[in-house]
């Protein structure tokens, strides 16, 4: 069974510079009316998300070989975690698209991607406070780990019902990621805000 971390909304508030850059815009160059529109969308999106992180820290030997990134050498344990913003934000993006509000949908989509990244960074930080020195954060679909490993992670390892994994490895809700961090010296320190 996995453990669960419920973040504050503040943990999911992305830097505007970055998510606007993701959307192809430069924060410092956009005009004021656009800033107001972007901020409104920011706040609507922030209201919609239901962020949660499921995670489990295991000994390396308990994981299938094809799930272990090739650069995770000399690690003693791995934390596998799934972060999701929930389905409401997907619904919002779909609704905006259906209403022909393409700009809004595009901005919210970029916002949500960066919001998820912000959440992952925050959780990454909390894990490192707990476990000390570790590898870089790694996600299936990169390097030698196939994206389809998501199915195993979600269904078998973390046992997360709220997230559906397609055969392709793509996850629903869309704003969901799986990540892994390998630990060189598993100290198992337990900061209050993780457990």
């Amino acid at each position, binding site marked *: 069974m996995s453990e669960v971390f419920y973040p504050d*909304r503040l943990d999911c*508030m992305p830097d*505007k*510079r970055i998510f606007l850059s993701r959307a192809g815009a430069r924060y*410092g160059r956009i005009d*004021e009316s656009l*800033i*107001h529109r972007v*901020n409104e969308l920011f*706040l609507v999106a922030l209201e919609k998300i239901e962020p949660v992180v499921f995670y489990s820290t295991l000994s390396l030997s308990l994981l299938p070989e094809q799930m272990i990134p090739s650069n995770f050498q000399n690690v003693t344990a791995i934390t596998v975690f799934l972060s999701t913003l929930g389905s409401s934000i997907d619904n919002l993006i779909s609704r905006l698209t259906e209403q022909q509000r393409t700009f809004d949908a595009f901005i919210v989509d970029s916002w949500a991607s960066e919001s998820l990244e912000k959440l992952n960074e925050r959780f990454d930080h909390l894990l490192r406070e707990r476990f000390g020195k570790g590898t870089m954060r790694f996600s299936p679909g990169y390097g030698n780990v196939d994206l389809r490993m998501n199915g195993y992670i979600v269904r078998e390892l973390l046992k997360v019902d709220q997230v559906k994994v397609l055969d392709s490895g793509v996850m629903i809700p869309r704003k969901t990621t799986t990540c892994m961090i390998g630990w060189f010296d598993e100290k198992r320190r337990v900061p209050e805000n993780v457990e």
Partner: protein
Amino acid sequence: MRREEFLRMLNERVLFLDGAYGTEFFKRGFKGLIELLNINDPGAVERLQTEYIQAGADILLTNTFSANRMKLKAHGVEDEFERINRRAVEIARSVSKGRLVFGDISSTGSFVQPLGEISFDQAYEIFKEQASVLIQARVDGIIIETMSDLKELKAAVLAVRDLSSDLPLIAHMTFEEDGKSVTGTSVEIFATLMNDLDVDVVGINCSLEPKQMLSVFARLAKYSKKPLSVEPNAGKPILENGKLSYKTSPEEFAVYMADFVEIGANIVGGCCGTGPDHIKVMTKYIGTKRPRKREIVSTQHLSSRTILKPIDTFLIIGERINASGKKKLQTQIQAKDFSNVLTLAQEQEQEGCAAIDVNFGIEKLLSKEHFQDAMIQLDRHSCLPVSFDIQNIDFLDAAMKEYVGRGLINSALAREDHLLQRVDLLKRYGGLLIVLAMEKDIPRNAEERFQLVLKAVKILEEHKIELDRVYFDPLVLPIGAKNDYHITLQTINLIKQAGLRSSIGLSNLSFGMPNRESINAAFLALCIENGLSGAILNSKETLTMNIIPGALSLQGKELVKTESTSQDPFVDLIIKGQKEKLMDTVRELLKQHDPLYISQQILAEAMKKVGTLYANGNIYLPHLILAAETVQPAFDYLNSLLGESQVVLGRILLATVQGDIHDIGKKIVATVLRSGGFEVYDIGKDVPAQKILQECRNYKPDIVGLSAMMTTTVGQVKEIADLLKSQGINVFLLAGGASMNQQLADQFGVFYAKDAVQALQLCKTLLKGGAK
């Protein structure tokens, strides 16, 4: 803390200010004057300030916003002045954990003359006294907040600087959504004056929530050369479960505060309605950021309180307020009758001048008060920026102190002692300067004059005066006395080649000659061709004025056009304060119409247009007050002719609610209502509900108007409404003031007026409708 150290900090990263005190204490159940908590319940202040530190604030403000002697006196706690201020610093220091503690100063609660009742010197002394206690108690800096009167802010800045030239100083004003303060000063006028004054940081706070403040702040960022700070409100207050709350969430606040940082804010914090949660989310969301670089407007401007004039293309200064040789004007000035000065000022504005030269000539017969009074009158009539053609340095000082805006000193000699005296005034009060290319005598040739220009440049640079703030006068001598005008042209050319500005006193050229206008015009065209940047001239000379745009257009330049605020000459008379001309016009109209028709169909209609101009932002509070005062004698005169049949639209009782000592707004409303035909009884400030009830029984008003400026006193409006209703007092209840809004009024069951003009319109509508 030294200023250099503070500025270094500002350069390294964006700093965070704390949030509100008054509204936060109110939310926590405290009532009354919250500065009293410093001595009666210091633990409450400690707790809030500790929460702000935990939220990530880098700068704590002392709980002294309303702790100047004038405000404490109004609350009956003047004796505690020193203890309240001193303890505030001790409390903040005790919890600051090494963060900065800034002494917080705000308005006296009254505008400075001419908008209010206190003099500049009184305001200055009040601020100096408070700043002195705060500085002695060892604050790291001073912040002056929520000022809506630029003159009052100037008094506060000078007071602090006269106590310490070494302490960091932040100067804030508060603006409406259109970027103007209620006194009509634009954010650009504020920014450009503060560029000159000895403050470290300029900013805006209060009145607006973040999304409304953003565009105002963007304008500040464009014009200010100083580091910037900003503290918006968390929205307008609303009543929830009997308590006032603010609708802007910490998240929304933080998202917008990031935009302020992106635009160039160096310090961000919160004003009314913000609390530790707002500050916490803001500090976490923004994190550690270096301040953004800004693109700042490099053009120069002159300004009065309400008028900003760009001067880079060509500066036209009207010369006609010159009492030399004008016996009648001299006598009037000596008697402090400035009516003709004002008329000349207004005419020159119409003629296209950007500034007016004020030369009283007979300085030996005058005193400082003459110059102070003249500046007050010019300000009261919202005149153009002033060129101070004043020789006596004490008089010049007095005039510049009283002046609101960025004026022009006319002039300094290129002699070091003479020039430095004027440089000192420029540094103290801001503005621009004309330097004559002469010491004791006028050099004979252009090269010698230019050498004096270069000598002055060296002195100005040594004293860190930017050269684009200075005009050099190449000197124009009468051709009638066989002077060669080519020397002036050559000097202009040399000044231009050196990348400097030049300005001349044009009319001197044709002194004693026939056909002066054509000579002046021809010479001015030659001067412009040689690179002249400005001239003091007779703007009544149409030919002279007309050649300016033509000569400039040959150089591909264009003068910035000024638009008249009103197309109606009758309205113009009223907003320019021309009482006598208005009365003359009324007397003339009486030959054709009856008094009632003039009163209701002409004067009242003109005032309606004035109201529309104000509502549309074409004119500002000073104009509105002046208009109401100007039209009142005409109404009174017409009413006296009507006798028993005079028109009184209704009876209105006005009061500022208990616990609130602000009454300038209420007085303005009273003036406007009277000018609109109402009988007004103003029963003062800090008035208990029971007293209002009693006066309602005495005066039997149709309407009761309540003013509540502070969030901590706005709840009184509901108490009064409930009391009057329970006692069967059948009146319309109208409320206004900075802390009121439509939503609150709806919740309290009263009518709401944003300003005096809305109040007038509403009162008329209510009494037409009948039902209360």
